[in-house]
């Protein structure tokens, strides 16, 4: 059976910006002749950078969820609410649809992103057996959903301007929102710095090891 041919084995690389196929020089990196972007076989230090950003995101998730993100003061009373208590308030007010949207965008998505990235990184770092199609699906979900977590922050910025009537009603942002904004940005950057071609590198390597073992086995039996 023919093994699928991959660009790096042929000394070729694709420009991630304009998808032009480029012949790599000895150093392994060059400028794309068409769009001028830097081209390298794999993103430089992809694993390390993604690890660093994922861990940063996971650590920042703690202050983002513990500190209050927003305070709604109505008729001089009101207390700061965190992300989770904000969702609970919406749920108790009977707005369970909105509660679900906010829950998905600001709790489920960041956690899922970090867990997904960690799974991919562990699989590649330790060269575990992986199913590339599943891993690719995970990668695409992780890199696609990240932006929706900014929903809560946009809502805060709208409310801060909208509800500004002194003692009667006022909305103020809280320190947790800064941490949460950083979580979103850091995880988006982490998804960008992850190079999905590494998944296939690990897979191909395992495949070739397996076929060699099979050949040895056949030779031994014969």
């Amino acid at each position, binding site marked *: 059976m023919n093994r699928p041919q991959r660009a790096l084995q042929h000394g070729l690389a694709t420009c991630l910006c304009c998808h032009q196929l480029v012949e790599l020089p000895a150093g392994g990196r060059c400028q794309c002749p068409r769009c001028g972007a830097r081209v390298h076989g794999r993103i430089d230090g992809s694993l390390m950078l993604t690890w660093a950003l994922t861990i940063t995101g996971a650590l920042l998730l703690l202050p983002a969820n513990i500190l209050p993100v927003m305070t709604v003061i109505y008729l001089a009373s009101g207390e700061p609410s965190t992300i989770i208590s904000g969702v609970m308030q*919406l749920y108790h007010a009977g707005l369970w649809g909105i509660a679900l949207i906010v829950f998905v965008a600001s709790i489920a998505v960041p956690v899922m992103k970090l867990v997904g990235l960690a799974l991919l990184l562990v699989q590649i770092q330790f060269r575990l057996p992986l199913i590339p199609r599943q891993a690719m699906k995970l990668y695409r979900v992780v890199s696609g959903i990240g932006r929706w977590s900014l929903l809560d922050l946009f809502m805060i910025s709208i409310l801060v301007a*909208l509800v500004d009537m002194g003692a009667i009603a006022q909305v103020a942002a809280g320190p947790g929102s800064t941490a949460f904004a950083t979580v979103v940005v850091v995880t988006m950057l982490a998804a960008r710095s992850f190079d999905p071609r590494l998944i296939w590198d690990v897979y191909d390597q395992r495949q070739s090891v397996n076929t060699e073992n099979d050949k040895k086995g056949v030779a031994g039996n014969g």
Partner: protein
Amino acid sequence: MQHGRDKTPTHWQRACHECDLLLTGRLAPPGQKLLCPRCNATLHRNAKNSIRYTAALSLTGLVLFIPTASLPLLHFSIFAFGAENTLVNGVLSLFDAGYIWLSTLVLFCSVLAPLGKFLLLAFICWGSGWAFLDRPVGAAVRWYQHLKEWGMLDVYMLGILVALIKMSDLGKMEVEPGLYCFVAMMLVANLTTLSFDPQAVWDRMGRRRERRLRAAGAGESS
């Protein structure tokens, strides 16, 4: 697969940017998508009349940006007190409250990045007709690729909806004309993203370069 033919060099046209598989097909037929046979990544989406549509849509977006940024989006009132929300005043009040990083992020994702995308696309589509703009247009395409995922008008729209429903039991919430412009701009932004195909720009430049080379060759031989 025929044996004995493997030695002849294959003319690879493209490598999948997500799994590095070498492919001989280069472009999708008009109106269709080219998918990677191994990892199912979208390699090329050939939108019909890409440059023309994108040029028109990006100008529409720029025109719509003016009322969206200057008119109020929402009006909120309790008793006789009222406040308005525009695209920028939420950012300003966050900035005044000391949330510099958060306000910068909101400003970037909801105003600067969408505006930058429209400007870059308008420049790319109108500028790719002139040879002396080849280099800046190439750079603009590169910038656009970096900026693409940071324009979050659709997320902001969902934020507006959540704010609308969340505050509706506290006071009176009214929709202002700016919101209609905002919705139109969001739709145009999404359509622009769909219709833009960088490959069409590269092809246009490549054809022009070829024509010029041929003209130069004809001039020398005569």
